[in-house]
């Protein structure tokens, strides 16, 4: 799992003479944004890497992925051998053929992220819901994986 993320560089947009202010904007963002902004994945190299949160409860795991602007049929979630895999493709919603692009920061296209979970999961009970651009996956643990309370006896 990658823990360190970097600020995404916008090398894909070649700045024209009138847009050198973009560089200044980037530097401003670097200094005035909270540290979480600095830790975004270097997406120029690896493509779109949606942000993930993984939480563990007594009896289940919760994984939340930020996938704004997608259709649920374009999202694939699969679980195999202890690894949860989220992939899909984001297509542009509206066509802008005669439009001039002033700023393009959003990513489109394929993505894939895989998370290994540290305990056994009941694969047939995994649920996924997509709301407000956030995909929430609930993975219940198997009975054996749930923490058991062990009584201490004194002889």
């Amino acid at each position, binding site marked *: 799992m990658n823990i360190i993320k970097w600020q995404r560089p916008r090398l894909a947009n070649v700045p024209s003479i009138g847009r050198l202010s973009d560089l200044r904007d980037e530097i401003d963002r670097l200094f005035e944004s909270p540290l979480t902004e600095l830790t975004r994945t270097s997406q120029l190299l690896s493509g779109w890497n949606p942000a993930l949160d993984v939480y563990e409860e007594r009896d289940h795991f919760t994984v939340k992925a930020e996938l704004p602007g997608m259709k649920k049929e374009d999202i694939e979630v699969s679980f195999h051998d202890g690894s949860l895999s989220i992939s899909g493709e984001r297509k542009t919603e509206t066509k802008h053929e005669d439009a001039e692009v002033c700023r393009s920061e959003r990513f489109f296209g394929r993505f894939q992220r895989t998370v290994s979970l540290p305990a056994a999961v009941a694969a047939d009970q995994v649920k996924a819901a997509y709301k*407000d651009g*956030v995909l929430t996956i609930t993975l219940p643990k198997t009975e054996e994986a749930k923490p058991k309370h062990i009584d201490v006896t004194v002889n």
Partner: protein
Amino acid sequence: MKATLQKKESQPVPAERTRSDAQYVAPDVNIYETKDGYMLEAEMPGVNKEGLEITLEGHEITITGRRGDEVVSGQSLFRERPAADYRRVFELDPAIDTARISARMNQGVLFLTLPKSEQVKPRKITVGD
């Protein structure tokens, strides 16, 4: 001369304001321009219509998105999503007709349509005899 939607230039601000701005994250945007107007798409996952606030002040538009409450129980093993709410300020092209700006929200993406005023659109002028 063409003016474009751009992020607000930083000006010297009192210390309190910068501290409160530090709790926001700027959403990624795509901006398109056609002869009829501009279209802005801002990514704010976790924000729905109720959490969205768009304010217009003179020629500046501020988009603020507050995440719906997401209390997740359990211990976090891995966190990449920013905990902060979203905010970004844009300076508008004076050609935009601010009374006709419309917005809609879909799956965490805000679609803002900013039409240009009628008189600014390019139009043909017929030459009389």
